[in-house]
């Protein structure tokens, strides 16, 4: 429950501001000793709960402690009648700047919400075009492990199959670019999605790896479409019938 609350602080300055507001402290005259203690205590609590979150707060905690120490030291009287510099000055300056941007953030946030209540011509298309590729990417990313396990299974099969069939040792060179062309040609001819297993049937290890890399590259450029979930360690490929945008438009 602490965790949720601590996430509400958008950073070390925000937390500092929280203590200042809560205690109704004058920003220009921060009781640094007390605030430093409170801040440190909060950071310790945070550290116990979530180290990652705490890291960014530790610097400010250290800064506060340093300022506290400097406040405790007797400051030499200024010789030329000038005010000696307040050890808090720089922190206060930063805090004041942050307060302004924090407020500006709130203001443009309101502006944004107001604007989102207005719809322009082409807004739907715009939105789909923008979201389309990103959604594809998410699906793709989630399936990399599936792809890898399919590669693993295919390689396993080449070892078994080649042990039986191939007796002559011929060094075969397979280029990824060639495999891309081959894949496109092979899949354009096919009337339905072809599984990677079928494609890799009794091929050499080099061939399977080069073809797999070709598949990855073609997927990245969306020249191939991927079908997963046919078998646990396999996937099927086909030539996409429509561009991603058209897909999105059709699906919507």
């Amino acid at each position, binding site marked *: *429950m*602490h965790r*949720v*609350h601590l996430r509400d602080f*958008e*950073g*070390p*300055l925000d937390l500092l501001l*929280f203590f200042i*507001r*809560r*205690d*109704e*402290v004058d*920003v220009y*005259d*921060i*009781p*640094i*000793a*007390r605030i430093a203690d*409170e801040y440190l*205590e909060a950071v310790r*609590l945070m550290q116990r709960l979530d180290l990652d979150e705490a890291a*960014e707060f530790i*610097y*400010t905690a250290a800064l506060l402690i340093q300022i506290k120490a400097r*406040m*405790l030291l007797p400051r030499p009287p200024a010789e030329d009648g000038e005010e000696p510099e307040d050890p808090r000055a720089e922190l206060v300056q*930063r805090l*004041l*700047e*942050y*307060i*302004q*941007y*924090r*407020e*500006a*953030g*709130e*203001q*443009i*946030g309101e*502006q*944004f*919400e*107001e*604007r*989102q*209540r*207005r*719809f*322009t*011509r*082409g807004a*739907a*298309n715009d*939105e789909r075009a923008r979201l389309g590729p*990103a959604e594809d990417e998410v699906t793709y990313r989630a399936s990399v492990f599936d792809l890898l396990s399919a590669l693993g299974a295919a390689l396993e099969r080449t070892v078994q199959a080649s042990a039986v069939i191939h007796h002559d040792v011929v060094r075969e060179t397979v280029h990824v670019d060639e495999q891309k062309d081959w894949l496109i040609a092979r899949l354009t001819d096919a009337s339905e999605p072809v599984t990677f297993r079928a494609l890799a049937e009794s091929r050499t290890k080099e061939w399977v790896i080069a073809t797999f890399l070709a598949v990855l590259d073609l997927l990245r450029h969306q020249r191939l479409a991927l079908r997963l979930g046919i078998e646990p360690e396999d996937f099927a490929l086909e030539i996409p019938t429509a561009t991603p945008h058209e897909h999105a438009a059709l699906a919507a």
Partner: protein
Amino acid sequence: MEPVSPDRVSDAPDDRFDQSVEALIFASDVPLRDEDVARAIGEVTGADTTLEDIVAAVERLNAAYRATGRAFRVEQWGGGYRLATIPEQAGVVRALFEQEAEKRLSRSLLETLAVIAYKQPVTKPEIEHVRGVGADYALRQLMERGFVDVVGRADAIGRPLLYGTTDRFLDQFGLGDLSDLPTPREVEEILADPRFSRERAQLLAEWAADNQPPPPPADSSEPVGTRLRVVVSSDSPPTPSEADDADG
């Protein structure tokens, strides 16, 4: 904006011009700039169109829309004119687009965006200095949403990238150009704002609620304290002894 004079005949030159402006803005699905309007009309009619002509036409169009209860207005966002539905109809349009909820931006994104918008062009370290936190994630998010882009490189050591806001930012925040950004209030004004203390009270309540320890057993003599020294009724100013600490 002045209301339309109702006595104009429908084939008056003004009407034709207004219709052209209206047609152009209607047909465009991106913000339509003044010069595009002038160029298109000029190509067909050979007439010169001034900025004032367009502004006046837009005002007349909006007045007519308002007078006849139309559900859209011409707005000047992102450096050009757009037709936009009125906020009162947000509900139905949103339902059409099947948007589940109102789109919102997190506070950290808004703060980062504010720093970039007001300070641009600005480097990542400068952004991070203002907020005291790393800006990688927020920057990536903002760039993905098309609100922010790299606008150049600073002349400093290492030539760090400079970031700035995009036209899409202006459009999506309902701004004509950067001068339409709300003027930031002076710090004194913010600090004196009653909202500041209202928010303080709210923060306090939330903080206290979240840090409330479970009720102690009846026989416990332990004080019900929290580690964070939350005092629910701390409306009193800091005690003098505590304040003195600071000046120590």
